[in-house]
């Protein structure tokens, strides 16, 4: 990658938050454990000279033995791009919310919660966004068993005030 300044900043940050840096298809990937995620992203947002201050996307990921939350960072003030991955334990999928850093993370975190059941601590309104409220299970988990045809072919009962 040509952008040595960004690389230096990311390396420095990785040493601080105990993360690993790798490069995938020309893009820097910083993997950290979930407790460090807010610290990492706040630092990335304020990188000296190369701020990665635009949350492009946020997605959940099920790797079988663990979950990951992937933050794609870019900037409107330069070409820098950074991908931050946060490992989340599968048996206790809790991670800090980044809504305080980017208000736009609100619905993205709700999506990750809806599809994977990852709980974002500190989120102002953590409820399902795509599926209806009384839907059971988290459909994009690898161990999710889809409902049977008979169940899907019946009309669900709509709750009052839904």
């Amino acid at each position, binding site marked *: 990658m040509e952008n040595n300044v960004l690389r230096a900043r990311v390396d420095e940050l990785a040493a601080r938050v105990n993360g690993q840096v790798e490069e995938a298809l020309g893009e820097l990937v910083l993997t950290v454990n979930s407790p460090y995620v807010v610290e990492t992203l706040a630092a990335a947002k304020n990188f000296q000279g190369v701020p990665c201050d635009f949350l492009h996307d946020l997605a959940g990921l099920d790797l079988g033995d663990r979950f990951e939350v992937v933050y794609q960072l870019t900037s409107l003030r330069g070409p820098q791009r950074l991908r931050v991955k946060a490992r989340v334990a599968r048996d206790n999928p809790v991670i800090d919310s980044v809504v305080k850093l980017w208000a736009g993370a609100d619905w993205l975190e709700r999506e990750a919660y809806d599809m994977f059941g990852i709980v974002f601590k500190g989120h102002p309104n953590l409820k399902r966004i795509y*599926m209806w409220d009384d839907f059971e299970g988290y459909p994009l988990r690898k161990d999710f068993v*889809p409902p049977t045809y008979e169940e*899907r*072919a019946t*009309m*669900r*009962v*709509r709750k009052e005030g839904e």
Partner: protein
Amino acid sequence: MDVAKEKELREAEALAEKGIILANVDKLLNWARGHSFWPVTQGLACCAIEMMAAGNPRFDISRFGWEVFRASPRQADLMIVAGTVTRKIAPIIRRVYDQMPEPKWVVAMGSCANAGGPFADSYSVLPGVDKIIPVDVYIPGCPPRPESLFFGLMQLQQKVANPAKVRLMKHGK
């Protein structure tokens, strides 16, 4: 519809083919209904784009007299279900259908509304809108072109204009 009435209608149809039209209010009404559907806009996915294209001047749905798309089900007599019916929206579709005044018809447009399409096995998609409301005409395609929509609506027009024939084909009596 009782049998005598049906016989009468069938005779009238036979006469109409010879160019004789008897004064028959039912027949006139059915002819009028078939030539002026007021569809309720039920655009759920990409099929809605084709439905919109059908309304535009290039295809021009108003040639057939079906261009009065209503935003309220209370003013509509036809529901064109254009797109994927998810299980989340299904109760609302049923509700809109219930709010339409009689007589009313339903057209399932596209593979998704017919049987779930490519999402038939999905956790979130209803495998066909006929699971919740009665469908008169199924239009295949993904999405169907506006010509297909017109053909489907013309089939429905035939159905509406010839109730005796429909009954005969469906029940054989």
